[in-house]
């Protein structure tokens, strides 16, 4: 699923304006627990989360992330958006809950990452 389509489906706001979003996203994972995210993502993944602290961006240094979708309208600070831009990591904001976000993307054909 193209990331542009993801943004549209989630009625999302792209927070990182200058980062390339013409990319194909092959799977997604949703969690608010850092250890779970590290444990479960073995392939490039789109992360859905309500966490907005700097360590969420740092995760992208450890594992391969296509981008991060912040759910429940949780807006990260400008500092965090800058951290992501430096890493070419797309950040998207949606008002939907983690459950609704997951449901919409799953129904659109975006697979769960293999755990």
């Amino acid at each position, binding site marked *: 699923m193209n990331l542009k389509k993801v943004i549209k489906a989630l009625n999302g706001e792209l927070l990182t304006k200058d980062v390339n979003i013409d990319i194909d996203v092959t799977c997604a994972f949703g969690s608010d627990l850092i250890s779970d995210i590290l444990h479960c993502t073995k392939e490039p993944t789109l992360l859905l989360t309500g966490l907005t602290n700097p360590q969420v961006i740092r995760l992208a240094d*450890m594992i391969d992330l296509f981008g991060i979708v912040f759910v429940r309208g949780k807006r990260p600070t400008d500092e965090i958006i800058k951290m992501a831009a430096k890493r070419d990591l797309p950040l998207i904001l949606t008002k939907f809950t983690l459950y609704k976000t997951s449901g919409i993307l799953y129904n659109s054909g975006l697979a769960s990452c293999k755990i």
Partner: protein
Amino acid sequence: MIMSEFWYYRESKEPEAKKFMENKPEPDYDLSYSIGERDFVNTGKASSEIKLALKRLGVDNTILRRVAIAVYEAEINVTAHSRGGNIIANIYDNCVHVVFKDNGPGMKDINQSMEPGFSTADEMIREMGFGAGLGLPNIKKNADVLHIESQEGANTFLELVIFYE
């Protein structure tokens, strides 16, 4: 107080890993970093730099991911649970050996801390998405050697080894 110790060797790597731990040869080079108590802004930097150094050596992506996860979880542990400490990554042509030393206050029972779900994290740590009690199990899962020494009221020492093949 009794010192508590934990050893783990991945079965498939045990002979070469034991030989390495017995000899501890001089590394090709090392990288060292300090970790600040509760410094959740900078923590993780050391882990990403160690990963990058190994990437430059041409280490395979699957291994890079294992190193990054194990080292990051351990770095977070020092940040979240200790009075700060340091990391030394010893880089070899066939493996990486990473040593963490903190300034206390130590662990009551290492075996209990190894159990998935056990955590002493407070609300602040949990709010940041940590404290699920999966840190040490995640380190063990990704390491070929894991050795921890600790004692309540004293320092914690953790070392891990990951081979590139």
